[in-house]
């Protein structure tokens, strides 16, 4: 196998590189990946490390690992480079779900299967994509509903609980899908729990805190809060703590380190565990399955399990 050589390894590794290159078997798959912005947050940094590690463990994979640095133009250029290098498959983490569509089409026209990872491209480009590998946000929303409902049943307040929702940024697919999953599932499992109001927190902790402060003034009885991610959930928790309101059940999604810590302190009930390692490994596996001619669903989700105070020991603390 060969993986991307970092420049930090310097020219001295050229000889070692030559040895490895010579050892590469003829029937290996060359898979190129262009990532969104490694280093901007630890999710993406961990993703890259996990991807390189996973590719390294597989003798049949040569990975060309690129990073667009958040720059659409650079990502398009990287797509062109990968096509020119005649890789067997391209994995793309879009910097912009729309601007990369023509570049994805170019790969499609060159008969190179494209796998979109983490966040999908715009629908107009679906024809040119072999598969999407990433989290299922609808399921994440419905699992959050189940976590909350189970807790209410345990507390015996499933017939009277009042809850509020703080959603992600309006217009974002992830925000819309999580809210939909939650709102559809909640009446199925806990028909008597009342969702009194939903307001956007824009994925922002401070904004979410303000939204929660307003909720606390408006409603005397709030038993639960569902937030579109832990970042916003912790913002809401801070508002409740400042107002001295105890006993509220907080459930989020995408377990952040702050959420994990708050769970450890017993202040935050549960969330959805989304691991960048699983994300990266799922993307590579999807690409390999496609290259091996296996049937892969167009939307190929990896599992994002429930995490609560009860089972958090089974998960390592998120790095982001």
């Amino acid at each position, binding site marked *: 196998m*060969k*993986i*991307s*050589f*970092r*420049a*930090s390894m310097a*020219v001295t*590794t*050229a*000889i070692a*590189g*030559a040895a490895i*290159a010579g050892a590469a078997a003829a029937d290996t798959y*060359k898979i190129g990946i262009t990532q969104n912005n*490694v*280093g901007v947050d630890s999710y993406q940094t961990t993703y890259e490390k996990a991807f390189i590690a996973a590719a390294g463990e597989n003798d049949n994979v*040569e*990975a*060309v*690992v*690129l*990073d667009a*640095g958040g720059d*659409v*133009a*650079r990502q*398009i*250029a*990287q797509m*062109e*480079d990968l096509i*020119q*290098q*005649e*890789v067997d498959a391209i994995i793309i983490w879009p*910097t*912009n779900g*729309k*601007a*990369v*569509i*023509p*570049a994805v*089409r*170019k790969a499609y026209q060159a008969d190179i299967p494209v796998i979109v990872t983490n966040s999908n491209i*715009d629908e*107009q480009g679906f024809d040119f994509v072999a598969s999407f590998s990433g989290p299922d946000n609808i399921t994440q929303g419905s699992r959050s509903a189940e976590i909350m409902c189970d807790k209410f049943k345990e507390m015996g307040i499933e017939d009277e609980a009042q809850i509020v929702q703080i959603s992600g940024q309006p*217009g974002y697919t992830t925000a819309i899908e999580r809210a939909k999953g939650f709102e559809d599932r909640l009446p199925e499992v806990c028909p008597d729990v009342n969702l009194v109001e939903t307001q956007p927190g824009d994925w922002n902790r401070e904004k979410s805190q303000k939204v929660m402060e307003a909720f606390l003034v408006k409603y005397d009885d709030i038993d639960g809060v569902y937030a579109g991610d832990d970042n916003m959930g912790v913002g809401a928790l801070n508002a409740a703590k400042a107002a001295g309101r105890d006993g509220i059940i907080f459930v989020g999604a995408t377990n952040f380190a702050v959420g994990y810590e708050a769970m450890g302190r017993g202040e935050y009930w549960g969330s959805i565990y989304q691991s960048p390692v699983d994300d990266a490994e799922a993307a590579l596996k999807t690409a390999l399955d496609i290259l091996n001619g296996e049937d892969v669903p167009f939307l190929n989700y990896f599992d994002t399990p429930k995490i609560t105070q009860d089972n958090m020991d089974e998960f390592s603390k998120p790095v982001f």
Partner: protein
Amino acid sequence: MQKSVLKNHAKEGAIWGFIVLELIFFGIAGEYMSMTETAFLAPDNMILLLKQSAPLGIIALGMTIVMINGNIDLSVGATFALCAIVMLDSMTWPILAPLGDWAIPFAWGLALLTGMLMGLINGLIVWKTGVDAFIVTLGAMLGFRGLVFMYNGEQPTFHLNWTMVDIAESAPLGIPLPILVFAVCIAVVWWIMNRTVHGRNAYAIGDNREAAVNAGIKVGPHMVWNYVLIGFLAALSSITFYSESGSVNPNDGMLYELWIITAVVLGGTKLTGGRGSIIATVGGILAIQLMRKGLGFIGADTAMVNLVIGSILIAVLYLDRQLNRKGEEELKI
């Protein structure tokens, strides 16, 4: 005399020597360190290199003239994004939308007008207020970027027209269209700088503005024309790039001005004006693009690429300074 001509040739050729060095280095290093069997120097890869150089290169031509003038334009990145927004959004306007694919030339025209207007604003302020071009275009950089964000907030502006994408992706005679556009721009701007009075005046103004005024050159209008030209070229660059991608983020084009100025300076154009060459600027752009692409080819990451290019820029300027100082000393003797 003979010696100084030779030295000038050596200086103009330096950038091409550097490019040859890069090609040799990446050609050899690519054999050992790259992940792919395709050679770095493969013709397809070189064509791709030229194509990817086009967006920055087209603007760099205009920047060369402006810098020969002794001015600078920091607002080109923002103009680049603004023109793209006008181009993509105008195709959905009620006037243009019913035209279908015929909206494309009008959208391009509007983008070019936008670019020229932005250049005109810069030029007029530089001329009429006498404020240093650095400050004026720094303000314009922020101001134009503000316009970009006012247009559509943080959201990308998007209009996918497959006909437009096909035109932008087309390759008449096997050469991708952006390269042809770049080549025509090089030819025209070279002609302006070397065969017209306007070009001669540009050097004269940059060399000694007082003397140029005394010689009867209308310095103000001359600079305005150059800003309109760079605005036009920024718009043209925006068209060649965004016709293909069909979507612009409000942050697009940020730091383009710095990449472009880096390329122009690498090509030997003086920041103080009076000296510079279009062909050498093309060399500067190719050198940077080669560096970016080559380092990527052998597996370096983005941060590393920036570090290397920054170091080379400083090294080149230091060498240039040493060469010039030696030249002056020789003259005294």
